[in-house]
């Protein structure tokens, strides 16, 4: 495989002798584009490894359909074990040894933070990073790094505004995971509530990913007398929280992070009747929500899954995520119109206009510009009715924090 592509390169170079090929386009030959990616296939976050599998399958599909402008995609995804030191090592391997054109969707806030400086110093695009932290989009300091999904902080701001509108005298309790994911929700609430935060938020309780349950935290939060609960927890703990809140007879206004809105992996395990009234906000469609059972966009995703990942877990929303973010990347490559220099790839990534992804909610559009590195900024509130998520209100565009 490798030797053949070298041979092809040699042929191509001979054929185009004299013309400027590959001089300023590292990772790109006449027939191939090399894309790098890091994923936690091992270690504590290995559940996210499926995103890498979904993306590998996606680029295989693209190649089967003829590639991009006559270029096949060589997608090289490597394991960083969710360890920043390893991520640095792997990013350098991809850039220096494999010679990739750019990194696409490397996963994890710590891993991306660790490589951000290196990528920008080398002027290698670090595109559509898979993290919900708020800092991805700092086009002034890190012009080669771009996020994709709305940040957790933006989402928390939306919840805070909703609480202020619906329940101005709310007594708020917060359950959060004790890491960057959970603490971004605290930050988002503080952005909007400001001085009122100390008065309105009557209790915060954190949990560790190594805690078996969050039952004790829920009991503590209920005892504080709060009537509103904001839950920033991953699926297992979110399901536990919804169940425990119901079982102890607490009936707060419950706002739940969109990380944990999966019907099959959160609402059903928690007990569909126990989550009635829970509110979340989202930009994408849930793979297991019956509302999208016959949706053309989701059917496109299902057809892809059936053909390229027949044994995969169709309940896992990470595959939907992988499909959506890969489509965005594909759009950028198409916009490049054959000029796959790093500078042009970055320029096109910052030039997405009202691009719509079939796995995103209706009305959610992807927009970027040289001064807007937040591709998705829109979300819509939705409420659990016992069977499905019901959207309500308008599509909300998150502001600058």
């Amino acid at each position, binding site marked *: 495989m490798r030797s053949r592509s070298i041979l092809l390169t040699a042929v191509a170079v001979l054929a185009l002798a004299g013309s400027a090929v590959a001089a300023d386009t590292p990772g790109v030959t006449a027939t191939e584009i090399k894309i790098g990616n890091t994923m936690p296939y091992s270690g504590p976050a290995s559940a996210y490894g499926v995103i890498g599998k979904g993306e590998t399958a996606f680029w295989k599909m693209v190649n089967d359909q003829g590639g991009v402008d006559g270029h096949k995609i060589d997608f090289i995804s490597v394991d960083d074990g969710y360890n920043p030191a390893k991520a640095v090592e792997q990013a*350098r391997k991809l850039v220096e040894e494999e010679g990739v054109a750019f990194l696409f969707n490397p996963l994890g806030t710590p891993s991306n933070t660790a490589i951000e400086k290196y990528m920008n110093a080398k002027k290698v695009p670090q595109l559509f990073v898979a993290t919900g932290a708020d800092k991805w989009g700092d086009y002034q300091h890190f012009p080669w790094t771009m996020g994709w999904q709305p940040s957790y902080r933006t989402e928390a701001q939306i919840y805070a505004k909703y609480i202020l509108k619906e329940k101005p005298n709310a007594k708020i309790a917060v359950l959060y995971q*004790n890491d960057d994911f959970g603490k971004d929700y605290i930050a988002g609430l503080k952005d909007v509530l400001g001085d009122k935060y100390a008065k309105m938020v009557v209790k915060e309780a954190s949990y560790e990913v190594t805690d078996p349950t969050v039952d004790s935290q829920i009991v503590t939060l209920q005892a504080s007398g709060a009537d509103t609960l904001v839950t920033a927890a991953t699926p297992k703990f979110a399901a536990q929280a919804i169940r425990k809140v119901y079982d102890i007879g607490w009936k707060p206004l419950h706002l739940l992070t969109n990380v944990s809105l999966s019907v099959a992996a959160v609402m059903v395990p928690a007990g569909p009747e126990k989550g009635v009234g829970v509110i979340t906000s989202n930009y994408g469609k849930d793979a297991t929500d019956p509302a999208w059972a016959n949706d053309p966009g989701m059917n496109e995703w299902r057809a892809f899954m059936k053909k390229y990942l027949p044994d995969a877990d169709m309940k896992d929303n990470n595959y939907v995520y992988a499909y959506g973010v890969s489509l965005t990347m594909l759009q950028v490559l198409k916009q490049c119109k054959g000029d796959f220099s790093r500078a042009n790839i970055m320029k096109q990534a910052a030039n997405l206009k009202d691009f719509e992804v079939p796995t995103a909610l209706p009305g959610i559009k992807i927009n970027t510009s040289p001064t807007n590195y937040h591709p998705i900024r829109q979300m819509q509130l939705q409420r659990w009715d016992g069977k499905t998520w019901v959207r309500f209100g308008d599509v909300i565009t998150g502001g600058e924090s």
Partner: protein
Amino acid sequence: MATLETSRPAASAAAPLFAGLSLRVWQIIGLAAVLAAACVLPFVISSYQLLLATQVIVYAVALLGLNILTGYNGQFSLGHGAFYAIGAYTTAILLDKTGIPYWATIPMAGVLCFIVGFLFGLPALRLEGHYLALATFALAIATPQLLKYKDFDFLTGGVQGIVISAPDAPDGLPLRADQWLYFFCLLWTIPLFIVAWNLLRGRTGRALVAIRDHPLAAATMGIDTARYKSMTFGVSAMYTGIAGALGALLAQFVSPDSFDFFLSVRFLVGVVVGGLASMTGAFFGAIFIEFVPNIADLLSKAAPQAIYGVVLIGCMYLMPTGVMGLVRALGHRLGRWVAR
């Protein structure tokens, strides 16, 4: 836990000669060759490979620290990732908040880790075997929690961690930053190994091994076991902490997620695979923990950890006493064969 056997061949009265030179001379020649190779290395391999080599050196220092405690002194630790973290954070915080030059932060990290390790070693004196494992495990769990605790945010950067810059080579040295960092790590590693070697082959080393093999007998012979054990904890933590400080310069980033419980487990695996109570083993162990995950990743995306586990068990099956255990056994056999 008191039976951490290591088959150390008895120093034979009449050292056998190989090609007219004694074993000792051959060892010195070998060491010189390795050192020469280590100095040439950064000029012949790629920048990425140099990063791996530097990481191996850093891990070797960390493993040497753990080996002093576990291999030589028989004290079990599931928490050395914590000392690595403290060393790394010391350097990162000093570089981030003060104007102290990077080279001066390394000894400061070492001193701090020595103090923490020594203090931790005092209550740990009363704990043995599984109980010590639990206590050190608690240290490994507690350290990331403390690093991200909100009241320490102003120092540690909380969950976001601290981004630092790698040092450039001193003026006048024609070296790239990564080459310089390699030599900088090597400049720390060599004296640390020499000091450990001097410490462990002499009176102190014999005392440590005596405590490991038979604490009661050692105490009876007048060895102050409490002092030795807590000092060993301190020295061990110091080595691992210095490795952490060097590792922070290498990764240019520290965060609580960098130092989870699995780091401590990796160190323990490295020590066992390399060979208990062996200084050379630290390098083999470091090579194992650095490269086996990469190999596993190449073989399987679905279950790389399963491959890692299989390789680990396979290594233990072939070399129950680690790489150096095997080397010693082979050397012993070779020695007998030559003597015959």
